[in-house]
């Protein structure tokens, strides 16, 4: 369940960016890693200075925000903006190139040694349910998923900004003609989607050792979630996360040797039989 919540937050931004901008954003993995590193290093420094540990959660949030605001708009304005006219596969390759670049930037900025910042995790202790102990920190991950998912849904359907965004999703050309500043929406969407990835990374940092390669693992897993649920669909991302989570738990429990493969198997099955995913916007195959 926690795994699904975590996956959901991680993948939500990816599906949002696809839905609005119609691009498959490999850089998504980089933002997850950036969030994790920023969260780990800044929070680590915060705690080392003896500042209140209870505020470390806010620091985690702030770090993700900071790193995203520094990097995402730059990427979007300086590079992506000029590429929207290109073929979607080409754009994917461009985001892949950016991902490679960012992987090394992370290594250059933070080095290759692992970061540990377990305090926010340990601080909350654990609670018991039916005799089993669960780390309370995990509730934060769940809360994050809920806030992200519900918040985004609310924004899209109940605010004016959201409705305009729906128009942009539907038809950017016409939206432009109607005076909507599509470019600004793209910038905001890209930044917000990347922020979601960074938040997922940042809040995961206390539970793992932050090492290079975090982005590599998460990106293809996010792809699986998003494809299963349907590219561009928010409820789809939720469903995809749940399915992947369930499938993984079942396989870990009953047949551990298929754990890795089974997730991609489900992804392939969905692509084979319902390429649009379970709720999707995308146009699947040709003939």
């Amino acid at each position: 369940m926690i795994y699904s919540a975590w996956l959901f937050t991680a993948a939500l931004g990816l599906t949002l960016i696809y839905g609005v901008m119609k691009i498959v954003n490999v850089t998504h993995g980089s933002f997850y890693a950036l969030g994790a590193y920023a969260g780990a290093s800044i929070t680590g420094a915060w705690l080392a200075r003896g500042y209140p540990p209870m505020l470390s959660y806010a620091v985690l949030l702030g770090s993700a925000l900071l790193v995203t605001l520094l990097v995402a708009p730059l990427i979007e304005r300086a590079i992506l903006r000029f590429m929207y006219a290109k073929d979607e596969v080409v754009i994917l390759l461009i985001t892949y190139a950016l991902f490679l670049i960012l992987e090394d930037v992370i290594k250059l900025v933070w080095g290759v040694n692992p970061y540990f910042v377990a305090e926010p995790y340990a601080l909350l202790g654990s609670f018991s349910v039916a005799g089993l102990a669960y780390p309370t920190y995990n509730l934060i991950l769940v809360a994050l998923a809920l806030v992200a998912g519900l918040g985004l849904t609310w924004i899209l359907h109940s605010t004016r900004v959201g409705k305009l965004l729906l128009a942009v999703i539907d038809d950017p050309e016409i939206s432009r003609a109607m005076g909507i500043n599509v470019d600004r929406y793209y910038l905001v969407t890209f930044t917000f989607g990347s922020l979601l990835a960074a938040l997922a990374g940042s809040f995961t940092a206390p539970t793992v050792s932050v090492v290079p390669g975090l982005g590599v693992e998460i990106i293809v897993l996010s792809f699986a979630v998003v494809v299963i649920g349907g590219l561009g669909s928010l409820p789809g991302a939720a469903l995809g996360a749940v399915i992947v989570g369930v499938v993984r738990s079942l396989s870990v429990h009953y047949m551990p040797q298929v754990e890795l493969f089974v997730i991609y198997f489900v992804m392939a099955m969905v692509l084979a039989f319902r390429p649009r995913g379970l709720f999707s916007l995308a146009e699947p195959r040709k003939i």
Partner: protein
Amino acid sequence: MGGLWLPQWAMFMVTIAIARGLVALGLMLLLRAGLVSFGQALYYCLGAYAAGALGRFFGISDIFAQMLAGAAAAGVAAFILGFLLAKYRGIFFGLLSLALSMILYGLLVKNEALGSTDGFNILPSTLFGIRPGPDSVRYAVFASAALVALLLALAVHRYLRTPLGRLAPAIKDNEIRVEYMGASARHAVHVMYVIAAVLAGVGGALAATTVGHIDPDMAFWTTSGEFIFITILAGTGSVVAPFAGALLYGVIHTTAYDLSPNTWQLSLGAALLLIIVFLPEGLWSLFRRRVSHS
């Protein structure tokens, strides 16, 4: 031949370049039809494991048998998977091919018989029953690789001038028209997909015997990414381009990595970006332009 005065490390580089070049050659064929496979590593890995399995379970280590096993394993898999994949285009073709390669990765990683994440070592190649000494093994592999690659490249070159070869850009350009002229684009793509897979399978077997070791990472998506990079670097201009691109990639990889391991991917990414934006035809097109000007 060249092997007699090339140092061991150079032969290694060239042989690996030939192996990667074969995979990129296959990718090039698909690219001409407008398809980008994000999972070509699937066949590269299958080829490698097939070659390895030959030695591990049957004790066969003849280099040509290894390459043949790689080709066969890849070909059969692609034939089956092609029924599904040939129906897709664009991003979906890419994502599905990616998923399939990750399935193989997942299967191999947990497979004890094949060494799980560690993989296993492959038997050193023999040539028609003769076991070359440790110094000449590399040369034997290199020579065989060069020969096979030459034959395959010639075959592909011929292929490009056949009706199927010419059909690729037509499918990319106006698939509906192709259908309306009585051809099945899906069928054509299926055949192309199998050809590309066979090339990748041979490449995988070659890589396996050159490196001496096989592991599941050969099916990981980052490996597919390397091949895509080489293909884009090289462009689709000629059958020689993928090999030249692979060699260039190998050289850059080794030098850049030795100089500064933490900026190697950065250079790769930057190079990829620059090529996509400024030189979408690949570096080979530069070469062609210069030749035609002189």
